[in-house]
């Protein structure tokens, strides 16, 4: 609850929240992978 309130996705509809969280996870995974390859 604190997470969705701080990031303001509290105002989004459930499916939009999923889109937002998937995008966040995707960016995280990509950056970890690229970081690993890069380093």
């Amino acid at each position: 609850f604190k997470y969705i309130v701080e990031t303001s996705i509290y105002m989004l509809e459930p499916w939009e929240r999923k889109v937002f969280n998937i995008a966040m996870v995707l960016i995280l995974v990509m950056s970890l992978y690229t970081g690993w390859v890069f380093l």
Partner: protein
Amino acid sequence: EQFEPTPYVVAIITYIGYVMLAVFGHMRDFLRNHGFEKNLIATEPARTKDFVPLYQNFESFYTRNLYRRIRDCWNRPIRTCPGAEFELIDRKSPDHGWSFEYPGTHTRAINFGSYNYLGFAETDGPCADAAAAATETFGCGVGSPRAEAGNLDLHTRLEATVAEFVGAEDAIIFPMGFATNALNMPALIGKGCCVLSDELNHSSLVLGARLTGAKIKVFRHNDIADVEAKLRDAIVYGQDRTRRPFKKILIVVEGVYSMEGSVTRLPELIALKKKYKAYLYLDEAHSIGAMGPHGRGVVDYFGCDPRDVDVLMGTFTKSFGGAGGYIAGSQHLVALLRQRSHSGLYGASLPAPVAAQVVTAFQMLMGRAGPPGEGARRLKQLEVNTQYFRASLHRLGVIVYGHRTSPVVPVMIFMPGKIAAFGRETLKRGLGTVVVGYPATPIIESRARFCLSAAHSLDIIDRSVQIIDEVTSLLLMKYSRRPPPA
């Protein structure tokens, strides 16, 4: 007065929140415009597609994509008198704010949302009896302007009462607070004049100033140095292009700024207007009845002479449980308004029950009606409630704006997601209040606004502070870095 600045990190997270909501808004608009999603907002019928569009699509972007999602927090229907406690009619939205359904249940809550400073919004007592009697005598409404058949002796009595109460020579009343500003400023000034307006003035003052056609200069909120600088420029440089001197310069301020909870610096403004021969228009909408030892507004609070303020404006909405407004001042000013006021010539006049309610409330404040000392008791109660509530909130660690004696108490929320969460969580716990966000406030200054009332008991205040403590802990809203008061 306190205006603790928005913490830097919170400001940045707030912007990121708004940008993220804007991105999703554009994404939804794209889906709607390309038929992937049904457009539920009111649009023009297909047959008028070839005409010039009535609405600019972008202008309702905010309503469609941000406000709509959380609009259950606003315009909540109530089913009882807006006293210390009230009952709200529950609403459910199956489609995230596009439409509402009424399950038939209702919620009882403590009322910190209504303007009811002196607690005159009540179902019984001298005011209610007077309103009922006036209804039987005069009926519910008057379908004609004052200048025609809409003038009742009640109106005349109310004007005399208002003039005596505020300490002016004469007064004129109007059926609507907003119209009192918006429709009378054009009767006072016009082209070739200059209006110095506070940047946080109410929209009725902004609209009234724009309708006059006068040159408008906006000064920083409550900044006397800025007023003087702009006043000097207006006098030295005069009108644009022609450089002719302005015919009149009108300084327009509010007594209490309801969004900030701040109080105007009246003594300095009076000194300035005397020094530069300008006129002063004081909107006491929130301070009449709520400020000052006798409830006569900020003029009474600062102990100034009412005759030093050229135009004393106020409303009956916030402190007297009524509606409408008044303008008080010199005989000459009121006579001029009687002839020229758009509201007095075209608008239907104040309904008799409302006028009776307001007259009785004024008389209770002047000690001529109701139980002896009732008016003074309410004023004292409001003052105690205000300072007790503010001190309790400061102790919680939330950021509270405004003057310690202002009965409007803004508590800062900042992030857009928390605006709705605060409104919903407090109502869930039995506290009804108002939340305000952009564009009615600066983008990083969203807030909840609590309106104190003399009808609130200290027990009610304690309960509400406890609810606020719970919700602000849940929503991580205790941003204040100031040490809590001893």
